């Protein structure tokens, strides 16, 4: 017992989840003109939430990281036996911290960098609602609660892209009229994700009816590892869960919403989307699909591995073809999440640990890449890499961070990105006994080729954007390098990238026990 123990019985986690939402409601009541007040309240709320999440982490018993802790369970919808059941273990804790942390940085960045139409009130309340959805997904231990939080992120992100997004007009195959990028991207994002999650909900109901009418994830895991779900039923349920999570990750070939959404979204939108929202999908696999349906996971693992390998290669090749800086980073996400899914598909503790650190690292690194590229797009008013060049000379601070982040993203040893890729390949080399080794080793080779291609497109990007002489069109223009708000938002991510790169135990210390317990319980490996 200590002075923080009052946070233990679910209170701390509930604050982390609902405090942003409550603040969002308060912000609705503040007049629009009080912009500074709105921004300060938002920042205060996010900081408070972050601090509470840190306190929760302090209370977390790392020696028992495989157990769900600090949670609570109270009745929520009694007529369907759904409860407000929350808790964290070593798998969810790093992601929860990532979410509260990135939210703070996103808000700091938004202080001075709101795209048209400014409307700080709208943007700030959307970020806060989004944060509630993200945090909630990582702590929910009831399928229905999980579903609600999982979906809660859709509306804010839809409006973020749709209102503050890219206004360039583009033509879309199949549409008669040209359409603004933001409008097309926002509804595409929404429809794709809803399509996946509508079917996912049917899957949840299937588990509910076969699993003694409970939505509780721990109870279902108990049932699932004892073989309660089998046959065609389980195959179908895994298929729909796969659909729901894979759209969110996104896995090839369900990824097509992602480049559009990322390119169109305002900078903070892209950052939150890349850093956190994508993780909701891969987290769903680890938290729900694998432990509840282990036999099906074994059956489906080769398919997931192949799709991941395709995703890695496809993402890298697509990157090589991009001229748009943000679109390039968006496609790089497809590749990086491919590594995460490849790690998960190996069904080994190494692979899943790789996925966990890969998720965190991708959140930090790609989040930072989107910060930087968004800021550059704002400064140069273009994302066309053909027009950029000599960024190092024009914007030395931004350029330096871009160079650093690109190095981290290509998996340079010593930086955070390395562990996820390296260990995912390791996991794929030696998948769970009984899995088709040929498929996994081929996927590993594809992944290895992917790392080379990744290095290729990132270095080429750096060469085109950062190096060389500035183009004439920029010389007589006054370009602003990163200001203090941006640096305050970025530097912590740089530090984290190095820290996790040098001490991967920061993540593994939390995840390892939980992952090993998961694997041994579900797959006996």
């Amino acid at each position, binding site marked *: 017992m200590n002075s923080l123990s009052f946070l233990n019985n679910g209170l701390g986690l509930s604050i982390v989840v609902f405090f942003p939402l409550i603040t969002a409601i308060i912000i609705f009541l503040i007049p629009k003109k009080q912009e500074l007040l709105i921004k300060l309240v938002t920042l205060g709320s996010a900081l408070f939430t972050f601090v509470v999440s840190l306190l929760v982490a302090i209370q977390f018993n790392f020696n028992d990281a495989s157990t769900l802790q600090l949670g609570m369970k109270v009745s929520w919808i009694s007529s369907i036996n759904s409860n407000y059941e929350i808790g964290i273990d070593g798998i969810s804790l790093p992601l929860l911290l990532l979410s509260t942390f990135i939210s703070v940085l996103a808000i700091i960045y938004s202080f001075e960098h709101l795209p048209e139409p400014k409307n700080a009130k709208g943007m700030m309340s959307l970020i806060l609602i989004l944060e509630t959805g993200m945090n909630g997904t990582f702590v929910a231990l009831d399928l229905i609660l999980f579903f609600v939080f999982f979906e809660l992120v859709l509306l804010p992100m839809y409006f973020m892209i749709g*209102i503050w997004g890219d206004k360039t007009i583009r033509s879309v195959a199949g549409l008669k009229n040209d359409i603004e990028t933001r409008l097309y991207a926002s509804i595409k994002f929404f*429809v794709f994700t809803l399509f996946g999650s509508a*079917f996912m909900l049917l899957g949840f109901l*299937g588990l509910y009816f076969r699993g003694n009418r409970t939505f509780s994830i721990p109870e279902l895991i108990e049932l699932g590892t004892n073989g309660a779900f089998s046959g065609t039923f389980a195959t179908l349920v895994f298929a729909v869960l796969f659909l729901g999570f894979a759209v969110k990750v996104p896995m090839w070939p369900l990824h097509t919403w992602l480049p559009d959404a990322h390119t169109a979204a305002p900078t903070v939108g892209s950052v939150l989307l890349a850093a956190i929202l994508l993780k909701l999908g891969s987290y769903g696999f680890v938290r729900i699909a694998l432990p509840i349906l282990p036999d099906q996971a074994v059956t489906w693992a080769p398919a997931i591995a192949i799709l991941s390998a395709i995703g890695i290669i496809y993402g890298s090749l697509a990157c090589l073809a991009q001229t748009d800086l943000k679109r390039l980073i968006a496609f790089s996400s497809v590749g990086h999440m491919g590594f995460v899914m490849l790690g998960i598909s190996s069904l080994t503790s190494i692979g899943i640990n790789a996925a966990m650190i890969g998720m965190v690292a991708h959140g930090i690194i790609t989040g930072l890449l989107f910060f930087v590229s968004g800021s550059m797009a704002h400064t140069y008013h273009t994302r066309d890499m053909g027009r950029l060049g000599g960024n190092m000379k024009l914007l030395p601070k931004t350029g330096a961070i871009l160079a650093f982040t690109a190095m981290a993203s290509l998996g340079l040893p010593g930086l955070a990105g390395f562990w996820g890729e390296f260990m995912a390949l390791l996991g794929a080399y030696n998948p769970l006994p009984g899995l088709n080794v040929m498929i996994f080793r081929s996927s590993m080779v594809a992944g290895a080729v992917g790392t080379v291609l990744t290095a290729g497109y990132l270095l080429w990007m750096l060469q085109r954007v950062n190096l060389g002489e500035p183009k004439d069109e920029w010389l007589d223009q006054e370009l602003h390098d990163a200001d203090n708000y941006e640096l305050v938002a970025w530097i912590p991510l740089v530090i984290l990238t190095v820290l996790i790169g040098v001490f991967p135990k920061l993540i593994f210390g939390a995840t390892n026990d939980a992952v090993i317990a998961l694997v041994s319980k579900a797959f006996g490996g």
Partner: protein
Amino acid sequence: MAISSELIVVLTIIGAIILDILLPRRLKFIIALVSILGSLTAFLPIIFQFANYSSPEIMFEGSYVIDKFSLILKGLFILVTYLTFLLSVNFVESDEYYQGEYYFLLLCSLLGALVVTSSRDLLTMFIGIELASTPMFLLSGWKKGDQKSNEGSIKFFLLGVLSASLILYGFSLLYGVTGKLVFSEIANILIQQDLAQSPLALLSAILILAGIGFKISIVPFHSWAPDTYEGAPLPVTAYLSVSSKATGFVALIILLSKIFFDSGQGLGIVLVFISGITMFVGNLSALQQTNPVRLLAYSSIAQAGFILSPIAVANITGNFEDGVYASVTYLIIYAFMNIGAFLVINILQRSIDSEDMYDWGGLAKEMPLAGIFAVIFFFSLAGIPPLGGWFAKFVVFRSLLSTGEIFGLSLAIVGAVNAVIGLVYYSRISKIIWMDSPKEEIQSDEESFIPSPLKVVGFVSLVLTIVSGIFPGIFSNLGEASSIFFNS
């Protein structure tokens, strides 16, 4: 007294007529006041009865039953009518004439709906249905000078009469076969004499289904709805799409579970197909609409498919408890979000009077409150958490999958696909008013002023929509209560 809320409505009706005769024109707003107060008063006995509920109260030799099912739906109808009155105040006043009749007719329709919820014999139910729908023929043609209104109301009237005669024909067949009026006796005789699956019983079921199908606008009996909705005054349309539809559903639920529960799989399969096709037709047609009212008309057709699906599957599996629970919960949540959606159209049309919703570009900047209403109600209709609509869809899916039987499963997949199609058009209004740029300069602040009765409707619906999404337990308990006591 068990029927005090009906009596209060009757007294209000009489009061409205007398006041209409006595009052000079400038004081006619008092009628509105009396009607609003009357409907609120009628709500009180319901609360009281619900709180002190012990067992179903059977009156008039089994013809009229007050149970939890009927109480909950009576409460719903009264609340919806109250909100419709509030929606109507400004409209009727701007109209200058016929105030008395307007409220009189709406109250009559309410009385009919109340009767339907408790009716347990053929005659009472028929009278209830017709009392609920006949006033709507007049109300939908309220805008006399408007050609569309005339067209819509004539269509509605002709089809309404046809549907009444179909229902009556079906009822008379039942009476002819069994010689009984009360549902439980009819069901007993059908089972005892092994007639439940006889061609005559099925024919009467099909006729009744067709007749009620018009009221709830399911495919292929839906064609009147868009025209009538478009022509009718907006508050009347809101009432039509919520209360009239719910009345039809209540009648259908009672008939299916009290008489036709043993009619074999055939009827259920027909219903399953109808409900699936209704979702597709409603949603795919709604995608094409640029007129917001027509959009909501098709949306309400699609929603009818959703509401019908649990009862349809229940008719195959015999699991009426889950089916009724899902449909009633859906009806309750749907009522408030749909009224809210019509309110949004109403407010926006006050600002820019247009039949093309694309003229409303960027309006949310001028009217942020309307903008927020639009987001809440339309995305709730689409079923996006944490707004109430998600739970309505969820209970429907739950009841469809409860037995794991193939028709339920197929219908659930159809429903999931339709939820996604629905999102595309439900998001459109929010997209237009929040994201598009204005087509023309919006004038003064006066245009964007929202009258307080409309605000009340907005906030009541808003609170109910959000609460039902975050704490669905409250509404779900109502649905559950209605289904359990209904089966006893």
